[in-house]
């Protein structure tokens, strides 16, 4: 495999980098490409970090709520219902 760069051919190309950043951008509804077009990589990563923190905090909060009402829940009944529900999405 001929390499056009003097360094090893393992270096990530600009195109690959752009593609990866763009894919992350599509995961962010607030940076919707139809309205914002191209956003800087730094901003995308910034928003991604906030998004991850938000999700992790949400799981935290939900775990907390669940710990309080776990006794009063019918888990066996939920099993089939949840799976059915999710499979239909």
């Amino acid at each position, binding site marked *: 495999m001929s390499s056009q760069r003097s360094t090893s051919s393992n270096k990530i190309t600009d195109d690959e980098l752009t593609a990866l950043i763009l894919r992350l951008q599509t*995961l962010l509804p607030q940076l919707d490409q139809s309205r914002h077009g191209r956003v800087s990589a730094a901003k995308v990563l910034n928003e991604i970090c906030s998004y991850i923190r938000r999700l992790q905090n949400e799981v935290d909060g939900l775990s907390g709520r669940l710990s309080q009402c776990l006794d009063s829940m019918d888990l066996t009944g939920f099993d089939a219902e949840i799976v059915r529900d999710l499979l239909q999405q």
Partner: protein
Amino acid sequence: MNNPHHLNPTSLKSRFTTRFLRALTKIRAQKPISSSSPTEIFRRYRRIKVAADKSMAYSVRSRRIWSRAMLWKLRSRSYRRQDPCSGRRSGKTNQAIMKKSSNENTTTRREDGVGFVEEADELRQLVPGGETMNLCNLLDETAHYIKCLTTQVQLFSPIGKG
């Protein structure tokens, strides 16, 4: 859509659900809260959180760097509780994870020219195993990790409304 690299929403969610519900049933059976002391509730909250992460990581298994890192972390937690001498073993596993993911691109040299070193470093703190990943892997793993996190959140909502 048989791309093996894409998340298969059906099977991941159902694997995740089954494991998580099984774990919740166990947690509930461990100690019925007749006296809901704050300590008890806090302990339960910790167990539920670990169960959610475990279910997520075990459903993805070792197909991803982040899930391997999370599984290693979860396992070394329980090992440390039972046997303090197994710390050495965990260290070797960590090195294996690091070697696997940093074989390709260099981590920092390439980033110096593209202006998001700080943001990338911040991301490394958030994604399990991120510190050992090169930039390419980091961005790839992040996308998958976020998809799994949103799945994790979704699974709580029908339960929470119970």
